[in-house]
């Protein structure tokens, strides 16, 4: 057992840090410095910068334009990017549909879609959930009717994150209405500019329009946009969900938010002394730090397993569960440390210190972390059944 990075890995980490420091444009750095809010434009600007460096998709194999990094370097790169406060890249292309197309798509699809995901030329969104198919995803009702050389889509997706900015949507559609729930679903790619697609952004408790209702009315999707076998979409759906769950461990974001908590504790005073001097406050911060270290170890163990080619085990199942609660706990800590400044909401700069401006909105929005990517209740059901072998 060994926890240390090799000298080469450490050198790689230094290289990453140095590159981030010089590559981030001043405008983005100013936002990152105070953990402000990155819009889609800023996020895509950073996407393109990373793409030019070849680091936009650390987990993609060389064959498809990835940097061909080993597991440890991938981890180092991802963690350093998150820790730097740089924009978090949109995951829908790079981490969701991209890997799926690599695994299940044909060569034509790979050639058509992957390069534009990498370059950022095309943005994606995820069309899984529907009003009556959330946790029970296999209940999707949006239909894709066979019309010769194309399908005709009718129905509605909901909670579609960033559909209003997306060029493409990947979706689960019912192609066989007679079959049993899971059996009649197909995985389709649909151009958001197609006639009959309508998007309605929804305001969230985080104060931004983070997701949308997406409506489909007689939308034509060419047959070549089917990925994997007809009626075989459920396998793809599950493959992607497993992937999505490890994504949301959010170790780097939690570490970054812990730094923010410490900054608030330093800059906030009570009776002329920083809160950080108060042993009660220090213990609160330390408690979250310990949870984070535990999560990190779980994450390392999952990574080490993956390195040796083991199937993801218990460690990765708990990553989503704990990771989501820890990022929520980090923001809760920040909000608590702010005292009455926690009242602030989307005010002009200067009402509270700049690094406090987005704490409330992020805290509110991140209540979703225990809901999306398979709610924590659903995660627990899975662990109870598949790992503990409890009867269902």
């Amino acid at each position, binding site marked *: 057992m060994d926890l240390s990075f090799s000298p080469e890995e450490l050198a790689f980490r230094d290289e990453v840090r140095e590159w981030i420091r010089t590559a981030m444009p001043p405008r983005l750095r100013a936002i990152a410095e105070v953990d402000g809010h990155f819009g889609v434009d800023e996020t895509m600007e950073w996407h393109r910068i990373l793409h030019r460096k070849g680091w936009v998709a650390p987990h993609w194999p060389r064959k498809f334009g990835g940097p061909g990094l080993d597991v440890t370097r991938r981890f180092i790169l991802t963690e350093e990017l998150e820790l730097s406060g740089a924009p978090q890249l949109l995951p829908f292309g790079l981490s969701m549909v991209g890997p799926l197309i690599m695994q299940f798509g044909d060569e034509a699809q790979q050639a058509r879609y992957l390069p534009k995901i990498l370059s950022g030329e095309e943005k994606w969104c995820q069309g899984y*959930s529907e009003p*009556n198919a*959330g*946790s*029970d995803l296999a*209940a999707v009702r949006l239909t894709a009717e066979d019309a010769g050389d194309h399908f005709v889509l009718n129905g509605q997706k*909901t*909670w579609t994150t960033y559909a209003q900015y997306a060029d493409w949507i990947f979706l689960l559609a019912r192609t066989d209405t007679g079959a049993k729930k899971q059996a009649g679903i197909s995985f389709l790619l649909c151009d958001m500019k197609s006639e009959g697609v309508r998007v309605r952004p*929804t*305001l*969230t*408790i*985080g104060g931004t329009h983070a*997701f949308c209702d997406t409506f489909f009315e007689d939308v034509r999707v060419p047959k070549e946009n089917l990925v994997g076998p007809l009626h075989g979409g459920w396998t793809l759906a599950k493959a992607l969900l497993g992937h999505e769950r490890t994504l949301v461990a959010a170790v780097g974001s939690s570490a970054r938010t812990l730094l923010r908590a410490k900054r608030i504790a330093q800059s*906030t*005073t*009570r*009776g*002329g002394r920083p*809160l950080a001097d108060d042993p*009660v*406050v220090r213990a*609160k911060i330390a408690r979250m730090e310990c949870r984070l270290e535990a999560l990190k170890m779980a994450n390392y163990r999952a990574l080490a397993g993956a390195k040796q080619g083991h199937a993801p085990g218990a460690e990765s199942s708990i990553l989503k569960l704990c990771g989501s609660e820890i990022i929520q706990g980090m923001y809760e800590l920040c*909000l*608590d440390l*702010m*005292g*009455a*400044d*926690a*009242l*602030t*909401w*989307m*005010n002009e700069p200067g*009402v509270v210190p700049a690094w406090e401006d987005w704490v*409330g909105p992020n805290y*509110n*929005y991140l*209540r*979703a972390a*225990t*809901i*999306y990517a398979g*709610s*924590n*209740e659903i995660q*627990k*059901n899975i662990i109870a059944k598949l790992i503990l072998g409890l009867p269902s």
Partner: protein
Amino acid sequence: MNFDLTDDQRLLVDTVTSFVKKESPVERFRKLRDDEEGVGWSRDVMRKFGELGWLAVPFSEDDGGLGGSMVDVALILEQLGAALAPEPFLASIVLGGLAIAHAGDAAQRARWLPDVIAGDKTLAFAHLEEGSRYDAHHVSTRAERTGTGFRLTGRKRWVLNGHAADAIVVVARTSGDVGAREGISLFVVDRGAPGVQITTVRTMDGHRAAMIALDGVEVGAESLLGTEGAALPIVERVLDGATAAACAEGLGLMTQSLQRTRDYLVDREQFGVKIGTFQALQHRAVDMFVETELTRGTTILAALRADDPDPLQRMRGVSVAKVQLARGGRYVVQQAIQLHGGIGITDEADVGLYFKRMHVLESLFGDEDWHLSRVSSPG
């Protein structure tokens, strides 16, 4: 021991409940919130509160009030909280109004309270400062004597209703160093007085508040409330009353969050069944219920103790209740969102409104740590 409401109190609860049901559904709050031009609440509705006598409840009959107790105030605020009615009952009555009632002389009370009780005018109470955290004695705003009165200089933060109030009760220091318990005084300052600079700010719950700069504001001697330099006990009493009131409002938020979540569990189907059949969710709802009932008890404690002549009893009872609200209230509003799934994250769902208001109440008048330290201090 007796937890029964009197006939009058039952009548009060009934009138408040039926009024808000008819005239103040949650949609009314949304409209006021989204109206960028407005102050976030309705002057007409505040006047109606006045006509119904609610604004008179805690004031003595000599001052034109009803001589009610903090329990009566709590009963009103619980129902206003449940309806998310944004009118400044807490700021104008429990904070500003009671500060004048407790500290002011007959002339000062006669000058302000009748209009406030009628709902024609509203007040605010400016105590928080940068670096004060929640300590009432941390006051750096200064009031220096002039020939005819005082000159006030300083900055106040997060003044509830400060953006709309006709007058602001300001906590200022007439002597001593920042942090000293002596030397604190109360002044009523007209919103239009030269040197008063009011900046409206938005708060998480969709209300507005004010950051107030006092830049050499000249006030007459008649605006000093009570004895110069001896106001801290009154300030602490007023803040404890407001804390009890916040607990009552929070209880209303919890009750509604629980109710709506229960209804959703009964309504929503996944996997071919009502999600309320899942035991994991049943237990969660039960935990929400338990926290709500515990908070109901501690809110009664706080309301009774808020009027206790013994400050130690008062502080302890109020702090116990605020700690329970901080834990239990937060748990309930967080779980309300969780059990609603995706829809709980939208602004359209009412549970989010209760969630945000709860966080504001938690951040006011002392957070959990501050009240824990009061409970743990020997007195």
